[in-house]
C-alpha cells in the first residue's frame, strides 16, 4: 500500500494541455474518486499515476519516492481493465495463479494465496472451470482476483461500471466498496458518474478543464460546492441555477429574482459582497417545495411531473428558468397548473454570474 502525492502535475499532448499543473495528496488506504466530464483530464491524471503516460512537468510520489521515471510494471499498480483479458485455455485457478507463477512464488504459497483471494471474491466454486461460460460479472471478478493476487500498492479503476442496468450497478458498486473495506488498498476510481463517486469514495476530486475544482469528502462537495461547476456536476437530480440581482439592503444583503426580494442569510453575506450585482443562485431540488412559506416564494407553471413512486420529480417553469423539485408522491400537480414555489434560504448557494459559462460546459 502506498500514499500518493502529485506536485504541479502537467500533461501536454503536443500543443494541447490536458492537465494544468495540479497538486493533490492521497493517503495510504484512501479511496479517492476522480470525477469530471469527458476531456476534463481525469484519465490523463490516472494514466500518469499508473505510469502509462509520461509526466510532462511536475512530480508524482509513491510513499514520498518520486516515481516519474519508474516504469509502469515496476510501480505495483493494478488496473481494472486487466479484467477483460482472461486466458481461455487454462482454468480460473491458473488464471489467478498466473502472476504468482511468473514471479516464481513456490507452489504451496501460490495455492494458499489463490484460495484465499478466491474465497474473498466468492470464486471458490468456480476455480476448476475454464473462463468460457462465465457470466460477465464472474469474469470481472476473476480478472479482479488476478489483479489483486499480486498485492498491488495502488488499485486504479477507470469507469468499470458504466452501461450496467440499475441492479447490476448497485451490485458492482457494493462489491468494489467491500473490496476496499477488505483489503484497504489505496484506490483511485475515475468516473463521470457523480452518484458512483459520492457513493464509493472517501474523498472526491472534481476536475474540469484540466484543473481540480474541489477535492473534499462527499458531504462537503455536495453541500458546499466551491464553484458553480461543482454545484452543477454533483447531485441527482441536478441542482437548479437561476440568475439573480445581488443588492445591499438594511445592513445586510439580498437577492432579487422574478420581482421578489430575499434577504440573504448571514453565511452568504461575504459571498454577496464579492459578487456585486450579477449573481448566479443555486438550489437543490430537495430544497424547493410547492406552496410552503419561504420568504422567497415565486410563481411557477408546471411543465411535467415524473412519478418515480418513492418520490415525484416536478418540473416547474418560473419565468425563463425551468426548476426541478423533489416532492412527496402524493403531490401531483397538473401540467400547466400555476403553483407557488418556495426556495429554502438555508440551502441557497450563491456564485458570481461569471461562472455561468462553467455550468454550460457541463452539458456541452
Amino acid at each position, binding site marked *: 500500500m502506498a500514499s500518493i502525492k502529485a506536485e504541479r502535475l502537467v500533461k501536454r499532448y503536443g500543443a494541447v494541455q490536458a492537465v494544468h499543473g495540479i497538486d493533490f495528496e492521497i493517503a495510504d488506504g484512501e479511496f479517492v474518486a476522480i470525477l469530471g*466530464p*469527458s476531456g476534463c483530464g481525469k484519465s490523463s491524471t490516472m494514466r500518469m499515476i499508473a505510469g502509462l503516460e509520461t509526466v510532462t512537468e511536475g512530480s508524482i510520489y509513491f510513499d514520498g519516492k518520486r516515481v516519474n521515471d519508474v516504469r509502469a510494471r515496476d510501480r505495483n499498480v493494478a488496473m481494472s481493465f486487466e479484467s477483460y483479458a482472461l486466458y481461455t485455455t487454462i482454468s480460473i485457478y491458473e488464471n489467478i495463479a498466473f502472476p504468482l507463477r511468473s514471479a516464481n512464488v513456490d507452489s504451496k504459497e501460490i495455492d494458499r494465496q489463490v484460495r484465499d483471494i478466491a474465497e474473498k471474491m466468492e470464486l471458490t466454486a468456480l476455480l476448476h472451470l475454464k473462463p468460457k461460460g462465465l457470466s460477465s460479472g464472474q469474469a470481472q471478478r476473476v480478472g479482479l482476483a488476478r489483479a489483486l493476487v499480486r498485492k498491488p500498492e495502488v488499485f486504479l479503476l477507470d469507469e468499470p461500471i458504466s*452501461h*450496467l*442496468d*440499475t*441492479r*447490476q450497478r*448497485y451490485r458492482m*458498486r*457494493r462489491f468494489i*466498496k*467491500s473490496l476496499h*473495506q477488505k483489503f484497504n488498498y489505496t484506490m483511485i476510481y475515475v468516473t*463521470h*458518474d*457523480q*452518484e458512483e463517486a*459520492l*457513493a*464509493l469514495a472517501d474523498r472526491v476530486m472534481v476536475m474540469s478543464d484540466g484543473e481540480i475544482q474541489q477535492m473534499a469528502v*462527499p*458531504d462537503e462537495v*455536495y*453541500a458546499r460546492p466551491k464553484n458553480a461547476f461543482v454545484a*452543477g*456536476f*454533483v*447531485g*441527482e*437530480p*441536478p441542482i437548479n441555477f437561476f440568475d439573480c440581482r445581488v443588492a445591499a439592503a438594511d445592513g445586510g444583503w439580498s437577492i432579487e429574482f422574478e420581482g421578489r426580494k430575499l434577504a440573504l442569510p448571514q453565511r452568504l453575506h461575504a459571498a454577496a459582497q464579492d459578487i456585486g450585482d450579477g449573481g448566479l443562485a443555486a438550489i*437543490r431540488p*430537495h430544497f424547493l417545495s410547492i406552496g410552503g412559506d419561504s420568504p422567497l416564494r415565486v410563481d411557477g407553471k408546471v*411543465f*411535467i411531473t*415524473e*412519478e*418515480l*413512486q*418513492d418520490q415525484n*420529480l416536478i*418540473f416547474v417553469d418560473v419565468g425563463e428558468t425551468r426548476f*426541478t423539485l*423533489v416532492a412527496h408522491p402524493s403531490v401531483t400537480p397538473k*401540467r400547466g397548473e400555476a403553483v407557488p414555489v418556495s426556495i429554502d434560504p438555508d440551502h441557497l448557494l450563491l456564485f458570481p454570474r461569471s461562472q455561468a459559462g462553467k455550468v454550460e460546459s*457541463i*452539458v456541452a
Partner: protein
Amino acid sequence: MYELKSVHKRYGLAKVALRKIDLTVRDREFLVIYGPAGAGKSTLLNILAGITKPTSGDVLRNGVSILRVPPEKRDAAMAFENYALYSHLSVGENLAFPLKARGIGRAEVEERVKRISGILGIGHLLDRRPGFLSGGQRQRVALGRAIIRPADIYLLDEPVGHLDAKLRHKIRAELKALAEDLSATVVFTTTSSREALALGDRVAVLNAGKLEQLGKPADLYHRPANAFVASFVGDPPMSFISVQPRRHDGRVDFVTADGMPVASLAAEAVSDLNEEVGSKIQVGFRSNEVRIAQESDSNALRGRVDVIENLGYMKIALVGIGNDQVSVSVPAGTSLGVGETVAIAFPRDAVHLFQNARAVTHATPSAGV
C-alpha cells in the same frame, strides 16, 4: 393499436431472444420496455418495425396482421441505439430528411428542424456532419430524426442511454411532454429503473426473452409479480430476508433462521402461501420502508453495517442480517460507521412476501414507519 401474439424469436438453433410474448401497445400510450442487457428489448422493437421477422407468432395492427408489410410501409419512426445517421449529410439535413422524403414544404421543414433541435439542445450543430459530433450529440440527432415527423408509432431504442446525467434528466422531461402534446404512441427501451418509472404510462419488464410483468409504474413498484421485478424496479433495488412461517392465533409470523421476527400478517392475507417443505420464503423491503431504530426498540432486528453509500441528499446503509443484506435509507446527516451494530425496524404488517420468487402478498404500508 399493435399486438404481439405469442411472438417467439430464435436466432440460430440455440439462442432464444423472445419467448412467446403477448403484448399490446395501446394507441397514444408511452410504453417502456425495461430489462437488462440481452433481455430481447431491441429484438422486440425490430419486430414492431418489421426489420426482424419473428420465428413464430403474429404481429397485428388494428387487428390485421402486418407480418408481410415491409418496414418502409409501416409508418414507424425509429431511433436506433447505434444512431445510424447519414454521415454525408449535416445534422440539419439528417433532421430534415424524413420530412423532405414525405414532400413537406421547405418553410415547415425549417420550422420543425428549429423546434426539435432547440428542444434537444443541438441547434448550434445544424451545419456539422455527424463525424464531428460526440456520442451524446449523435444520439440526440438520432432521436430528433425519429420524433421530427408524425408517425403511427415511435420506436425508440435506448435513445438517451449515452447522454450524461444532466442532459438525460432534461431530455427525459421534454420527451414526455412532447409525447403528450403529439398524443403519440411510443415504445421506448431502457436499462434504467428511473427512466422506466418516469416515462412509462405502462412498463413491460423483460428478462431473458420473457415478459415478467406488464403494468403501470405503481403496479410494478408496489405490487411486483415476482422477486425479479421487485429487485429490478426501484432505485435502490428491493432487498430480501429469508424467513420461515410460524402460525398462531389466526396470524402468521415470519422469522429468520435465528428465530428473529421480521413480519407478522393475518392468516387470510397469506392464504396463497403453501407450506411445502423446502420452499424458499422471502420478505422484501424497499429501502424507505425500513429505518434505523433505537437500540431499546424490542421489535427491531440487530444487524451489522456492511457498506454505506452516500448519495448526497441521503445515505444508503447496507445492513447484514444473518446471510442477507438489507438496504436502509438514512438521512444525509446521520453519522454511521461501517462495522457498527444497528437496530433495524421493519414495518411488520407492510411487507412484500415471496414464495419461490413468486409474490404471495403485498401488504399496504402503514403509517409510522
